[in-house]
């Protein structure tokens, strides 16, 4: 976006990126934990100084943050009460009544965001058709409100059974709470997540209520500070679904802000896919703690509605709190530079999900870390510029890496250090490859022929081996890979998605009902989008969650909201089902459970590169020892900015930049494109 200022707050760093007079200016500052807006303003000042732009020059401020996610994980949210149907107040804690790990008797579920004594029963009951079986008893509402007042509750969630089909009881409760307690925030399950399945709906609603006061205060303070600094432009927030929304909407539905950073990375991959006309892309984002893999087909990521925050058990599915919000579908595993390696009792190397983080950090940082991490393996293998790591801020200690690997890996496995370090790299690469394969299989996609886009500090170090494992031919390492998410914000559309559960069998298809549902969703979604833009020309994307009658899992089927009819839904369902599961089922009845509509502005696809096409003079080329499966060899190491455009450089070699290094093994070649991106390919004749 023209003259856009993008801010991405992560756990460790806050990235600020300004697009100004055809250049990208990027700075990284340490996140200020107590008041995150301090670091934001610090970053803004630096980027304005560097670019010589003024606040009034800025056309738009775009913001993404992990604050909501961290508040959930660290349980730092508001004291929240849940008003729920009497007789059902334990929905949140009973969860799915299962164990996510079969053989471990000591597992614990994540602690409920709302403890039992704050789950207050309301006498009322809707049936599954939305007719009241028991009318709403206002005395029980008043009793709950007394409790709320007495216990200094800061945020209220309301979640009643079957409210997704009739929300009148929830609305009446909201009105009463406001009458009696003024403007205490109230999150209704019929607003936040109007979908069938009470556990997931209530979990989402409580998570929203839990982070709402914190996010609301933060966003109010940030807008005030921006206004004080004379930023007169609109401010928008990045959501987990990959679209932008207003601060006002973000303050009402802050749960939609979780995972906004990774969503920005995925949007960057979308932009690059379009820029390079790559129909099928695999986005690979590897940082300090986790790796995220995401598929982009025809310039679009996959969207879904299921996500878990706070997975308490090795990132395992089912061990977190479910939230049902629009999210860009990606797989995240505990594989990053800081992931710790150990040998299990079967003599197998296990990597992560425990991470050494930034304190004490990998052994080679020399800050007291003794356990070998992926970064230690990379360091020992000669993949990093030990002298000038992190832009020269840190000098890596190869000896410390070696002794950590030797004591923890080589000893138990009786391998030499070389084999151990190569083994560590091989296992982490295999873990990521396995995650990619399984993710693709789950979504009925193939990986064959995809272009990889690699960003995040650790990705370019591991991209080549991952390409081999997934049998991909090329990888793109974009400019400013280190601040990829913030760059992604600049190209994101303004969008909003809403959902309705309306059960309908195709055998008794009712066009009028479908039209009503769509137009109600359109009104809500386009109302939100209109509040953030002067554009009037919106794109709409409809999805129906459909299945064969008798099945329990729905598949997401896209349709055109302006022309949808029975035939389109049927065709689209059979096509999707076949691509997922190989065949359709003859003579089985089909039904729709829920509907979603996504309304967005058209994309601003103009990517402005900061790349200064001054011809490079080659710069300094040093030689470094690199260890790979063929042995040790002396390879050239040079700065990314010193590669002249278009020239092909054969591996093995290392290409370094401020926040990462690209490893180009033998059998691979690399060149710098006009856009400044690096393209690494496997030799076709190798």
């Amino acid at each position: 976006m023209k003259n856009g200022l993008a801010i991405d707050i992560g756990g460790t760093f806050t990235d600020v990126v300004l697009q100004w007079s055809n250049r990208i200016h990027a700075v990284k500052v340490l996140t200020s934990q107590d008041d995150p807006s301090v670091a934001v303003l610090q970053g803004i000042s630096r980027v304005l100084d560097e670019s010589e732009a003024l606040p009034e020059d800025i056309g738009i401020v775009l913001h993404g943050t992990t604050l909501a996610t961290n508040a959930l994980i660290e349980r730092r949210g508001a004291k929240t009460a849940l008003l729920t149907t009497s007789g059902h107040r334990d929905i949140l804690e009973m969860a799915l009544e299962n164990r996510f790990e079969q053989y471990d008797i000591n597992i614990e579920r994540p602690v409920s965001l709302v403890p039992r004594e704050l789950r207050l029963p309301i006498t009322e009951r809707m049936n599954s058709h939305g007719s009241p079986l028991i009318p709403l008893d206002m005395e029980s509402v008043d009793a709950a409100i007394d409790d709320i007042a007495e216990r200094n509750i800061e945020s209220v969630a309301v979640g009643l059974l079957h409210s997704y089909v009739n929300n009148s009881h929830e609305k009446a409760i909201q009105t009463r709470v406001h009458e009696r307690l003024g403007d205490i925030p109230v999150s209704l399950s019929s607003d936040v997540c109007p979908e069938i399945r009470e556990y997931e709906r209530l979990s989402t609603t409580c998570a929203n209520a839990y982070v709402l006061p914190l996010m609301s205060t933060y966003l109010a303070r940030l807008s005030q500070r921006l206004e004080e600094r004379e930023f007169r432009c609109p401010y928008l927030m990045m959501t987990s679904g990959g679209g932008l929304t207003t601060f006002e909407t973000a303050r009402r539905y802050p749960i939609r802000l979780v995972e906004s950073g990774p969503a920005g990375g995925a949007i960057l991959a979308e932009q690059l896919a379009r820029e390079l006309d790559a129909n099928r892309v695999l986005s690979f984002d590897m940082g300090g703690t986790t790796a995220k893999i995401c598929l982009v087909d025809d310039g679009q990521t996959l969207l879904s509605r299921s996500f878990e925050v706070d997975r308490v058990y090795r990132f395992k599915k089912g061990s977190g709190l479910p939230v049902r919000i629009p999210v860009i579908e990606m797989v995240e595993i505990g594989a990053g530079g800081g992931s710790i390696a150990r040998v299990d009792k079967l003599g197998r190397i296990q990597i992560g999900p425990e991470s050494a983080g930034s304190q004490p950090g990998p052994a080679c940082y020399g800050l007291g870390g003794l356990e070998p991490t992926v970064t230690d393996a990379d360091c020992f293998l000669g993949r990093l510029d030990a002298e000038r790591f992190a832009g020269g801020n840190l000098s890596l200690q190869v000896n410390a890496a070696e002794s950590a690997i030797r004591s923890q890996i080589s000893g138990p496995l009786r391998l030499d250090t070389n084999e151990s370090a190569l083994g560590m790299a091989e296992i982490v690469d295999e873990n990521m490859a396995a995650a990619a394969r399984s993710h693709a299989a789950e979504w009925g996609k193939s990986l064959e022929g995809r272009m990889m886009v690699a960003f995040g500090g650790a990705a370019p170090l591991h991209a080549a081996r991952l390409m081999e494992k997934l049998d991909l031919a090329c990888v793109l390492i974009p400019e400013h890979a280190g601040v990829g998410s913030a760059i992604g914000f600049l190209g994101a559309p303004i969008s909003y998605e809403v959902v309705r559960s309306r059960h309908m069998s195709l055998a008794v298809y009712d066009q009028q009902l479908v039209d009503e549902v769509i137009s109600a969703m359109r009104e809500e979604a386009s109302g939100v989008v209109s509040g953030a833009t002067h554009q009037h020309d919106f794109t709409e994307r409809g999805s129906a969650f459909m299945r064969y009658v008798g099945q329990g899992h729905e598949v997401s089927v896209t349709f055109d909201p302006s022309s949808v009819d029975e035939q389109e839904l049927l065709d689209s369902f059979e096509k999707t089902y076949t691509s997922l599961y190989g065949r359709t089922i003859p003579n089985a009845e089909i039904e729709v459970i829920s509907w979603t509509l996504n309304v967005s502005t058209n994309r601003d696809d103009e990517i402005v590169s900061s790349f200064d096409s001054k011809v490079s003079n080659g710069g300094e080329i040093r030689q470094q020892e690199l260890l790979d499966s063929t042995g040790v060899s002396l390879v050239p190491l040079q700065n990314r900015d010193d590669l002249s455009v278009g020239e092909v450089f054969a591996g093995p070699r290392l290409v370094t930049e401020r926040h990462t290094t690209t490893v180009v093994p033998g059998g691979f070649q690399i060149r710098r494109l006009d856009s400044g991106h690096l393209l690494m390919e496997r030799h076709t004749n190798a």
Partner: protein
Amino acid sequence: MPRFGAIQRQLVWDRLLAIVEDQAQTLMRTAFSPVVREAGDLSAGVFNTRGQMLAQAITGTPGHVNAMAKSVGNFLKEYPIESMRPGDVLLTNDPWLATGHLNDFTVVTPTFVEDRVVALFASTSHIADVGGRGFGPDATEVFEEGLWVPITRLFERGKLNETLMRLIHSNVRDPVVAEGDLYSLTACNDAGSQKLLATMKEFQLTDFDAIGDEILSASRKAMEDEISALPNGTYRYSMNVDGYDDPVHVECSVSIKESSIDIDFEGTSSISRYGINVPLPYAEAYASFGARCLIGNDVPNNAGSLSTINVTAPSGSILNAEPPSPVSARHALGQMLPDVVIGCLSEIMPDRVPCEGSSCIWNPVLMSDSGASPNFNAPNFVINPIFNGGTGARPSRDGLSTTAFPSGVRTTSTEVNEITSPLVFLRREFREDSGGAGEFRGGLGQVLEIRHANGAPFVVSKMFDRVRHPARGRDGGSDGATGRVYVKDGQELAAKGKEIVPAGATLVMETPGGGGRGSPKERGRELVQKDLETGMISVDAARATYGFPSTENNPA
């Protein structure tokens, strides 16, 4: 990377584990039977050509997996490897050759490289109805329990066995579900086969014999190392459970040897007249699962690790029932076996064992009383939701409330249950004071109140336990509360069998709690305070059982 034997073995091994997990996910997402798709009542695994399981999916239930692990050998006896052709798919629901009752169908598919079998994929799922009397314990012979399909071909060289499919179609109450699930089992094995072939290509493997043997021997060795660290000897434990009409006594001995474990059920009650009998493979499955929760629980489950545990039960005992004994509800007793095995092991690892828990899932079959329905303008329906009681207190942790153990299933949503039936679930919440008191408290059960929206009578088929015999506490901890089934303001119902809930009445189910550990007086006062505030225990229990508040501290 042929240079690194150990690393390459690990890569292939990890790949096999990922492949069977995908196989299970495919099965779950495409299944029709609600207990498979919603609750995960299934299993999936890959086998070598000798019928030894190399890897199993973690998704699924232990009772299935270990029984299925044995079943592939039975398939090979009937159809030796040499007789198989590409496109063949084998099937059975034989309770004694596969996983213990007629509802479970096991499908085995050979994976071919050209005309040579390199591996076999097997998967099992619970099909909601197989004809006969329907899912429940009331039959007196297996022949009443539904259609019995011997080991046979479902597909021969890619061509569907239409006679078999038609036979199944006309013998079950919901043929769409049964047929759909057989396709779904076939499809998940195919998905596994394809990924296996891709893996072989990538690693340039021509077979799995050598690497499979390495996986099995590494797993066996890891188990042997664990076992050899335990004190040799024979350890005993016994438990009484409700049974159908008369209580069942389970007597167990666990003998730890140098590098293997023998589990024997000599002294256990003889077979029941009703369908709560357990075929031996199913007893083996849950007994060995109980041992594996404590011994080598991080060693992957496969033929190598399983081979270190031998399970026996005398012929004619309720844990080694032979045809034509009825076995439909064999899970009710089978799921108790881990508690018994863990009880034996408590003697040598007192600090690692959990207490007894609710253990048997509470999965009522709720259906219309078809005779009476028309008078109430009520549709016919059947649902089979799953609910759980509490697990036993763990070493230094409370038990988990309303959580399945040892079963791996999940519960179903109240809103979904109400959409798929005319029932209303008026109440579903924790059952106060049901967790056995102790320094570490047993998990709580739950209370359910269910009625028909139109006031029609309805049928409930029950396969519950711990209604008369509670989950016992340890080391001074109290027993968990027993379960209860009754009509509100009316009669008490039995734990097992089919009964009618009268017109206008409300069915109440109270699931059992887990046993507690250690003296309740030793429980941290802040924990008692919290249990009191959250209503997990009553004021009376706090005072009488936990001695809270203690009188010295509160002279007022």
